[in-house]
């Protein structure tokens, strides 16, 4: 007989007991150099629209993955930090409970899935996301001929009025699992890479199955450097960060 505490835990964010996979992403802040390759990689993979100069001025750019830049200190002791920020795929996702139409839900593999067809655009999820990583289609995204030739057929182009966000490249996970199934095996560590992880020149982004204790992400997530953003909010993100080192090489 399971105790109450245990059952709550299982239901909430421990996918291990019920599923083979629990996807997780680890971002090493010590490696990130802010180059933005991941941003464009994500845009190319996920048919993220460009919104143009005017809308950018209203802060309506849609990059699912953005690199936040923070400045610390005063000249000459200035430190610039980069923080890649995308949907954190919280196990206790604040966005999921507030959606009135189940447009966002948690799948059994620990991903926070956005179903565009269900979304009616109340934008409540966006309001409840402490990371501010949900983006709204204020207008119909424009992929005029011939730009539309580039569109990735695996990912739907979103209509105006729906929310969208990082899916951890759901289509790639799907493809990875399909391939593994065809070959009659389990997904191996490194089989699946979201667009950002695949493109990151410094190797700051690692993706994998945290239920697999041999996987890179498991080891990284259990290293001393691993942190979750806004841990105090109890969202239990699947995306974790590895803290950077000390700033001062001198003194």
């Amino acid at each position, binding site marked *: 007989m399971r105790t109450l505490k245990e059952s709550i835990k299982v239901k909430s964010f421990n996918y291990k007991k019920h599923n083979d996979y629990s996807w997780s992403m680890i971002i090493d802040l010590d490696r990130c150099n802010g180059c933005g390759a991941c941003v464009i990689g994500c845009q190319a993979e996920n048919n993220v629209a460009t919104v143009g100069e005017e*809308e950018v001025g*209203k*802060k*309506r750019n849609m990059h699912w993955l*953005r690199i*936040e*830049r*923070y400045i610390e200190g005063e000249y000459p002791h200035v430190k610039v930090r980069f*923080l890649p*920020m995308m949907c954190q795929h919280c196990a206790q996702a*604040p966005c999921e*409970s*507030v*959606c*009135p*139409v*189940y447009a966002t839900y948690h799948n059994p593999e620990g991903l926070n899935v956005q179903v565009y067809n*269900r*979304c*009616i*655009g*109340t*934008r*409540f999820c*966006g*309001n*409840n*996301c*402490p*990371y*501010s990583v*949900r*983006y*709204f*289609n*204020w*207008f*119909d995204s424009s992929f005029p001929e011939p730009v539309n030739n580039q569109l990735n057929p695996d990912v739907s182009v979103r*209509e*105006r*009025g*729906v*929310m969208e966000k990082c899916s951890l490249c759901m289509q790639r996970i799907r493809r990875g699992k399909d391939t593994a199934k065809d070959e009659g095996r389990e997904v191996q560590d490194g089989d699946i890479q979201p667009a950002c992880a695949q493109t990151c020149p410094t190797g700051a982004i690692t993706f994998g199955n945290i239920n697999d204790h041999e996987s890179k992400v498991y080891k990284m997530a259990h290293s001393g450097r691993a942190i979750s953003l*806004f841990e105090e*909010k109890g969202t239990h993100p699947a995306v974790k960060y590895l803290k950077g080192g000390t700033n001062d090489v001198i003194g």
Partner: protein
Amino acid sequence: MSLDDNVKRSADAGVAGGHHGDVMALPEIESFRDPETKAAKAHYDDADIYRDEKGFNEHTLRPMFFTTKSYFIFTLALGLVMAQGLGFFVYQTFVGLGMAGIHEPVYWGAYIATFVFWVGMSHSGTIVSSILRLTQANWRRPILRAAEAMTAFSLMVAGLFPLIHVGRLWRAYYMVPLPSQRMLWPNFKSPLMWDFCAINIYLTGSMTFLYIGLLPDLAVARDKAIAMGNWRRHYLKVLALGWRGSHREWSVYNKCSLFLAVIILLIAPSVHTIVSWDFAMTMTPGWHTTIFGPYFVVGAIYSGIAAVITLMITLRILFNLDDVIRKFHIDALGKLLLVIAIIWTYFYFCEFITNWYSHKPEEWEVMAWQGHRFPYHLMVMLGGSCLTIFCLSWRRFRSCMPCMFALTLLVNCGMYIERYLIVVPILSRRDNPFMWTDYTPTITEVGIIVASFAYFIFLYAIFIKLFPIVTMADVKEGVIVSGDVRLGRHAVRVQVKE
């Protein structure tokens, strides 16, 4: 004439809505009054028209049956304002919500602030009306209808805003629990779902309440319309449900309104609490606070009562109802407003002081930003509360119509800004400082919001022309069940228990 007589009369005369042509022998109020009693003078120095029922009916139904040219011009102007708002809305729906000024992460802007404002407004009527019914405050009688109508209309306006604000209006029905091929019910874990249900229940409840209250008056109006051969007789005949004013009808009517009053009184605070939960149930700093439920309810009642006063004074002037809506009523409402203003100020202070004292960075950021960016808004707000408390403490102010009119308008302006300050700055200064941003409404939002005010007034204007605006039955009942009794040198108004 004694009190006993009055009771008897009310029991067998059926008071209002009697058959056409019945002249009811109303008590001569003049005869109760001791002209030398100062207290009596202070309360009843308006002209008195309670001479005969026919005269009273004529007088109170006059706004309904008699329309001036300026009325048409006025409604036409309202129609134009509404048309521009509709234009903006249609354009926004077809082009995209980007027409509004909202952006990441200020996902809710002026639309939702206005929604909260209108829901707040709706609390005037029914709450006031049901509280006063239940507490048997005798002075309530003439204002009931106007207040209840306000509830219904402001809810109708409020209900539009979620629709205006959703991204895919054409899919908004997904929120309705319809068994369909989608095989998916709405998520009842979402506060928005609770809100959707609460608003619907409240709208249904307050419409019923309004309609039940209307019944006897509809009958009077029906009789008059039939006598006049007026076109209104067609729908009045149907809506009056064949009311004849029989004993049984009155007794059912009384039970029913009492029952509804209780129900509404339970629903109304829960509705606004649920609206507040749209905010308080999130984990957004500044929203996530336990105070929001009562704070919103009090705020709603506050703005609602202020709006009722504004409306009363407007009706009084426009339709020459000085003798029905008396200074005494405004004075009494003013006292109620004073109490609510004090409570609201207390809540406002509480919200601020806890934030200030704990100085939790992410919450304080919101407060600091409000204070820094909107000093004038804060001034209006504090003006809306401090000034109100100060002014309302004086009876002379309370019985000064222009003063009350201006003050109540100011209160509602302040309350609107307060709603804006609850929605916008908190989203502008979210947890993630990289995504901080500022928000200004666009012309689309302003146009639609202005149109919503026009729509509200328009609904009211139409209502006045279609239904009796003064609660005739209640007024007449009040006259019957009460009277002045001399106790030594003083005349005291007493009331028979209903």
